[in-house]
């Protein structure tokens, strides 16, 4: 039996008829082509598939698409504005918090929501707050450093598509 489904993803309305067993992760990746959310385990243990459902961070691998009926879903693709990365994304880039990058989408979605709800956590609280997201490359230090820079308000937002610069002007006159 197929179900009618209506929701918004990154602010865009989505209307589909879907089978009930389709996971939100599959709808995003396979149907909508939003491959930012990753499947690292499929069992809710790694956090790489984290998206926001009405602002709440959820495992899209453990969420049926039909559960998101009427919801506003935000994926990693929807975090930045047209001009600037958000603070967590900017801090990740500056601190070198991405190595292979596969856990990064889930991490920045999770951390953006966590810091929105907990703007001044202790280091211990912060580490507990992101303990549901696994990273195998960094050992977490650069991620934690990045998030502390957000907490301390020390992040310069990074341009999404920076203006090209000119290196050396053409000299005046003929050579």
């Amino acid at each position, binding site marked *: 039996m197929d179900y009618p489904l209506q929701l918004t993803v990154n602010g865009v309305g989505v209307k589909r008829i879907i089978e009930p067993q389709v996971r939100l992760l599959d709808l995003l990746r396979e149907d909508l082509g939003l491959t930012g959310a990753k499947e690292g385990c499929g069992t809710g243990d790694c956090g790489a598939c984290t998206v926001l459902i009405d602002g709440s961070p959820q495992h899209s691998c453990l969420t049926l698409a039909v559960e998101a009926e009427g919801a506003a879903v935000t994926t990693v693709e929807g975090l930045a504005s047209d001009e600037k990365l958000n603070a967590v994304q900017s801090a990740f880039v500056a601190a070198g918090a991405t190595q292979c990058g596969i856990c990064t989408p889930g991490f920045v979605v999770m951390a953006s929501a966590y810091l929105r709800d907990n703007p001044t956590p202790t280091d211990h609280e912060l580490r507990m707050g992101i303990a549901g997201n696994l990273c195998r490359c960094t050992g977490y230090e650069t991620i934690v450093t990045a998030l502390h820079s957000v907490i301390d308000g020390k992040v310069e937002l990074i341009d999404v598509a920076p203006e090209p610069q000119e290196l050396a002007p053409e000299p005046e006159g003929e*050579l």
Partner: protein
Amino acid sequence: MAKVVERPQEKTALRIANQPVSRVDGVENVTGATKFGADFSLPGMLWGAILRSPHAHARIRNIDYSKALAAPGVVTVATAADFDDDVVEPTSRPHNVFAGDFALFLGEAVAAVAAVTQEDAEAALDLIEVDYEPLPHVIDPLESMDPGAPVIRHGDGGAIDRTEMSFHSSVASSAEDLDESGNVSSQVQFSRGDLEAGFAEADVIKEGTFKAAMVHQAYLEPHAALAHYMPSGEMRLWVTSQGQFYVRDTVARLLKLPTHKVIVQGTAIGGGFGGKMTLLAPIPAILSKKARRPVKVVWSRSEELTAANPAPQSIIDVKIGAKQDGTLTALQGRVIMDTGAYPGSPMSTATMLLGSCYVFPNMELEGMEVLTNKVSVGAYRAPGAPNSAHAVENVMNWVAQELGMDPVDFRLKNAIKEGDRWPNGQPLPDVGATEVLGAIKDHPVWGTPLAQGANGNPRGRGMAIGCWSGGAGGSAATIKLEADGTFRVLVGTINLTGSTTSIAQVAAEELRIPLEFVSVSQGDTNEAPYGPVAGGSQVTYTMSLSTAKAAHAVLGQMKAVAAQRLGVTADDVEFGDGKMWANGDPDRYITYRRISNEAMGSENGPIIGTGHGKPERGNPGFAGTIADVEVDTETGLVTILNLVGVQDAGFAINPLSVKGQIQGGTIQGVGYALLEEIVYDDEGRVRNPGLLDYRLPTAADVPNVDAVIVEKHNPYGWKGTRIVGEPSIVPPGAAITSAISDALGIPLHDMPMTPERIVMALRAARTNGEPTA
């Protein structure tokens, strides 16, 4: 802080190299724009699923997949029968895609289905009828060595395939292949001096038997590959792999396609650590060739944990003798390494590395690789080295304690230096063992006595060092000057851990322009010049040399154009910041942009340069760890209080990236030490095939790592660069287990030291004074 130990004077000041630079692909990574293996799809694509053996050991009498073929959505099925006998190598896992006459471990691939949806493909697996004759199996490596144990290999002959191990280590070691009448598949021996005499002159002798568990690389991106066999006879693949050329060669060979007809695009890779080479790609390739449609296969996490190629379990005996003044006299060691159902483990490397950090005048080392009915093992970041270091470094600490010597001073007295020989007789180049030990000795944590905690739980400190030989493969890079005066670097190596950023830095440094005027592209195997497997920590080591050569080739062409315009000889042309000028006359310059355009109209034509070559030799990288721990004796829980990771990087092209490697490798070492273990039951089934029960360190489990970069110039690397990726994972397991021993006052012998093992060890020590863990 980077600690510069030794560096020759540079002719020009460094601009970009040796600067902490954030990743050139950082914005893509944080916006979800980076495309990994599973993110690629094609119109008309089918999904593949793999049928796996339910038995640890079985004869396959027959496979009937007619019902599966008739199932909804199913297009084709592939089995071992689809590969010709002359390309299959039963002793090489990558060249034995599907189990043939025998399945040798539970989870071994037996067949694969391609269907319109993943669900259709998975449903059809149940319809494949395999007639198995279960055979006796053996799971434990020591039981497997018993004369009466079931014999695992069935006279299939064939040399042991050590290709993948050779990517990681440029050091030769002559392991001997054995026949298949028993389950010991190969052995190796190294000896020097007179072992008995060495122990006779020792004042202190310590020994122990150390077990290390089978662990998984646990990259967070499971294997994924998309194959498209084209009507032209071309096979195109998008694969997450550490080596796209290795995938190409393997697929070409297995499917009997000309190499130039196989085109592999290595995708962004979500971690590899040695475990992602060419295990999966041949399966979608054969399915696509049969279906004549694109086929994608993505492994589940449970397939990863049961049927990939994890790091081996080992049992290592080590006995060390030293004189009262701390001089080492003798080393005896024996490595038993469980290779799973296929030979080719890092056994000989692990054996040799027992004698790799210190000068032992007398030694006898022996290694044995043992087959069992478990998944075959592969490489994992410095393969075999953490196991070796765990054994040697713990015994070194016991000897130091007995001698009443500081463990760092004891090591400094015996540390291996240039000209000393490894157990295989190879003399060493200028290595950084002494400098790494010096940085540990100077570190504030080492200089501050460990304060006892308020809660009364015991605390302990441990230290260890370790090394890795690393690869030194041939490589090439191409650089083009674009019409606007910017540059493109084309490479064939995989951007495993930020090597692309380092390559961009090398190019920018040599071309004397800011980083944003250089872009690095990873071309597919048809477009890009050859690049070696991203293993053995070799990509930046070898690619920095090739990239610099390519830059020099480009600069030579540019100078010729500029010289003509400026009316001087090319030797008199100076350059920098996007312009060239005659020596002494910087105001009258020609821009790179104009050079590019003028070259088009000159005999030179477009400016393009390629650099290729191979480092003259590898040069081992040394690393060290200090660990402070607190142990809850009630629950066995270990809290790491301090973790210091020191590593000699030679010349850190990107200190941010090098620190990231030290931090990441050290925390993977925490996994080895405390958490990670693939657990098998008696039937050969993995008991913990998920990331809840195969427990990786989380942010809440680990402290920050104080990463200290030592820079001891390596004459064979670009500006002194050494290998970086692997050494940091070698010593932490030894340092942390040693710290736990120190806290509890009992010697410990196993990795991981889980809470359960710690409580058992405490109990055993209390009841009979004999530690068992």
